[in-house]
């Protein structure tokens, strides 16, 4: 075992242990790591935003040469103005003006969102159910009972789970019973996705322990 002399690894190891110490209880070391984390990561995103958004998407295209090549770049003055209006939030009197850029952003989000969910979460799902889970499943042109039965379970599960989400009908009688079946399917699905993730999360922990043992303490390299 040879503990590293690299100050970078020392810092990384101390911060790693500081975060782990939170599992026992809150303590000054965690608090220190937390404040470093919040401060440094906020700064990191400022840097990223500057180098990956402001410079390439606003400053460079608005430079004299770029505007000469492509006059349409001048349109970027609009988001520039909207961005500056956003800053009126800092003034009590004019903060309402920030609603203009905000409403533009929300409008774009709502417009993009509505078509995106219809495509990927409705049409694609119906396609998946109706065309990829046929109730009369064929293997080499012949009816296959097992898979057809599985597909029937699939369809019943979708329809009953969907019934659980009905808001304008009381969950009583047939609707109630079917919705209850839906809840069971939903629970199985939640359990499955829980179980599916466990191993992936444990491997994250193993990676951190490996870092401490190999890079920091110099064991098991």
């Amino acid at each position, binding site marked *: 075992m040879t503990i590293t002399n690299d100050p970078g690894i020392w810092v990384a190891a101390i911060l790693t242990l500081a975060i782990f110490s939170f599992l026992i209880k809150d303590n000054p070391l965690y608090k220190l790591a937390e404040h470093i984390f919040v401060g*440094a990561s906020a700064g990191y995103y*400022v840097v990223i*935003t500057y180098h990956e958004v402001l410079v390439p998407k606003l400053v460079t295209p608005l430079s004299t040469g770029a505007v000469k090549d492509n006059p349409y770049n001048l349109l970027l003055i609009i988001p520039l103005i909207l961005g500056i209006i956003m800053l009126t939030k800092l003034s009590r009197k004019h903060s309402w003006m920030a*609603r203009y850029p905000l409403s533009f952003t929300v409008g774009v989000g709502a417009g993009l969102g509505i078509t995106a969910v219809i495509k990927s979460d409705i049409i694609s799902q119906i396609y998946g159910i109706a065309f990829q889970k046929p109730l009369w499943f064929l293997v080499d042109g012949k009816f296959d009972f097992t898979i057809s039965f599985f597909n029937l379970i699939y369809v019943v599960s979708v329809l009953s789970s969907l019934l659980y989400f009905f808001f304008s009908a009381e969950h009583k009688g047939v609707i109630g019973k079917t919705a209850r079946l839906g809840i069971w399917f939903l629970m199985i699905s939640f359990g499955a996705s829980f179980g599916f993730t466990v191993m992936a999360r444990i491997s994250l*922990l193993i990676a951190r322990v490996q870092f401490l043992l190999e890079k920091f303490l110099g064991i098991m390299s």
Partner: protein
Amino acid sequence: MKRSIPIFITFVSAVIMIVFYFLNQDIESVKKFQAGILNWVSIIAAFALLLGIFNLLFVNFYKLRRFNKDSIYSLVLIVSFLTITISGLVDDTSATYSWMFENMLRPLSSTMFSLLAFYVASAAFRAFRAKTKEATFLLVAAFIVMLGRVPVGAMIWGKIPLISNWIMAYPAASAQSAIMIGAALGAVSVSLKIILGIEKTYLGGEE
């Protein structure tokens, strides 16, 4: 005025995005327009980031000025913020910036993420004590799928990985599909109400 113009802006920008979705995506100018609008949004968000940072610094300078035992943490936050920001803005390939990213941000991030291993375990432990029928379904499915993904599962009984895959592919996938369809309807409804100005909480005031 303070609310009706923003509602109009929301309506127009949403309708334009919807119309462009249905235009031929092979036309160069259609693609350019959509990418351009997204650039606009990210430029506005970049300015909004300034507001956030201003708030973060303001809150922490305020705490620092109160000068109590916790002030040191605010000082640490401000110093780490300024160090990485200044070094990165001047030159994002600078040694200080890369060192802070590599030895501070990266380990902090991955350790925080890895805490999930413990939390998943404690959540599972609590679920084990659940007594309702619904919770039992959740538990049994979780247990089988978990076993199906580790070699021990197959050692206990060869069919476990098979059953685990079946659960993932049939009941689990189908119920997820139902959640997605339901959520999509909710999203369509919220989006429609925003576009038509029925839902306007996001604008704040009544003026």
